[in-house]
């Protein structure tokens, strides 16, 4: 319960900050996000001048009870999932800050920025090499996958 209070207070603040200091291309889907604080959906636009220009994606955040000390569960949802070497076709993202390198100082906004920057640095639209196998076998929760981060250039 105590942990939930911390989470609630923190999420309220983050939602406030997302609305007041909105970054271009990152918008909270308020219908879903405000109705339940545990799950947010954030609309992310592909940055201009990149391969994903003029595309719209939806990032889903699920916050565990221990948030912000535990990392949120982040994945792409909706019809348009970006084709990217580190994003599986079921929406799972291979990004170290989402599991191992998470820090409570990170926020929803900074995670969104990281994802956008990951998309922007992509040079070739292709699926991860083991996409088919992973999508068939993986758990629904991307945090249950033991990711093996290998690409430092992203």
């Amino acid at each position, binding site marked *: *319960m*105590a*942990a939930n*209070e*911390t989470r609630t*207070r*923190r999420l309220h*603040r983050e939602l406030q900050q997302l609305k007041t200091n909105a970054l271009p291309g990152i918008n909270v889907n308020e219908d879903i996000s405000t109705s339940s604080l545990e799950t947010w959906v954030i609309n992310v636009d592909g940055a201009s001048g990149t391969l994903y220009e003029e595309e719209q994606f939806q990032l889903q955040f699920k916050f565990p009870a*221990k948030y*912000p*000390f*535990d990392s949120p569960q982040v994945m792409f949802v909706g019809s348009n999932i970006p084709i990217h070497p580190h994003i599986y076709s079921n929406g799972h993202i291979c990004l170290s800050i989402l599991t*191992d*390198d998470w*820090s*409570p*100082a990170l926020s929803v906004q900074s995670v969104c920025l990281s994802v956008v920057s990951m998309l922007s640095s992509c040079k070739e639209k292709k699926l991860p090499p083991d996409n088919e196998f992973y999508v068939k076998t993986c758990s629904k929760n991307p945090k249950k996958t033991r990711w093996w*981060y*290998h690409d*430092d250039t992203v």
Partner: protein
Amino acid sequence: MITDFCNALWDTRIESDTISSDGYEVCNLISRDGAKKQRGFLAERFVKPVISILISFPFPIDVCAINVNPQVGGQKICGLEILSASLKYCNVQNKKQNINGDTIKSTLNSEAVTAKSNDHVFHSYQHVLNVNNIKQEFNSFFNQILRTQLAEGKVGHFLNPCFRDAVNADFNSRITGSSPSNSQICNLQQGNQLHNTSHLWIRITQVHKGSVPCLGALEVVGKPAKNNNEFVMNYARFITLRLKQERENCKGLVNASTETNLSANNACKSERATDPCHEPSLVDNVPSEFVDPITFNIMPLPILLPSGNTIDNSTLEKHIAMERNFGRQPCDPFTGIPLGSNVVPNAALKYRIDNFLLSADIKVDELGRTVGSSSDCKSTARLKFDAILKQDKNKIQPVGKRKACPINLKQPPLKKQNAENDGHISGKPNSLDEALENVLSVGQKPTNTPSVKASSLVPSSSLHHNESGPRNIQFTNSGNPDNEGCVHQEQTDTLFRLPCQHVICRQCLTCAVQMKQCLQCQVNFEKKDVVRVHCRRTLQIETV
């Protein structure tokens, strides 16, 4: 219609003849921003009395009372003089024939418009006074209404004895309302001069020893003078109503949050007792520097991190516990740099937070508190912290399925030497702790293994897992010239062990995976056999 005229909404103007400290400008006294208003006015530190502050009202008012808080932080003033002037007001109706309620509303809608349009309407006195010309040519307009010595630690509450409805329960003073015992009440002289007041001239004549001239808060309570025209009266009614609404809104907010506070309290009282940091407090009114940037709660025990950020002790403890789950050493949540011992309780900030909590109207008993002097709290926090570090150093426990493996990275990496191992410990230790102790005792008895020095002992990271038996840990002498490993080990925490027992970093692993063989011994391996290991670079085996 009695109200406080020290509010920018009235278009009251204020100026002083000195420079002020940054953030403590004289206009704070009439600011509509609560935080600024709370800060008050403080002159630059080299300024000496006497200093003058001139307040000019948009239209003549009848002064009922003047409330003064004579201190800002530790700075206190004691000598105060107030003079008033009643300049003749030029009738605005001649200039602006067609002013009606609509224009008032529209002018109120935006601040900028208010200032502009009011220029024509208000402040149209027979002379334009400023803080310099009142000292010479317009000096004669002013009459002294008060000259007083303020007692230390008391707020001044000066009443106009001639004011008809002087005691008006309607008005709640921000300054004196809270504690009447703490205020010094006296009457203003020449009360008849206080009708139709257009300007107030406040002179700070004396300060407490070593203090800087300041004014914590100022309220001029009154009502528009009777001979004001219809437009001014309408305007005044409108503004009074608005101020009242704002005050009620504020109250409503506070009430609402205390209500939620209470309901939440009942829901989880037991947790509260053990974990005081999770109080839903009225954080909205708290300066942001007192609030933990991670949990957004008031910090009962602020800790200064190497990155310059301050977070609460409980937050840091939780963060460290979480990091331990990942097998990492305590690190700064903002930078990820290992903390080491340079974590200091922020005693100065704690002092300010405590002061704030005492003075502000916040339910303190609900918040976690620490008692004792700042040095006490410093030492306890230190002790706690050292204990955490010690625990981390001594107790390396495999968490979950991960294997925590001690590696002294100060030493060059190693190669497994199964057969001819000098430092091999006979007997199978039951735990890592035991193994460490064994090694240390070996180091102390050089006669047993003359070629091994404890300082050069390196756990070979070859945690043998005999499925049935206890763990067998081997220590090798790292002085072997064949020892070549990955050179990046020193720079990273994330290491991988190949089936041939070589420990390499991620970068080298990527190369190795492509070649499908170990870069050191050229032994082929499968990707699935690579195991990630966690290390603690701070672990040092010390010789006695």
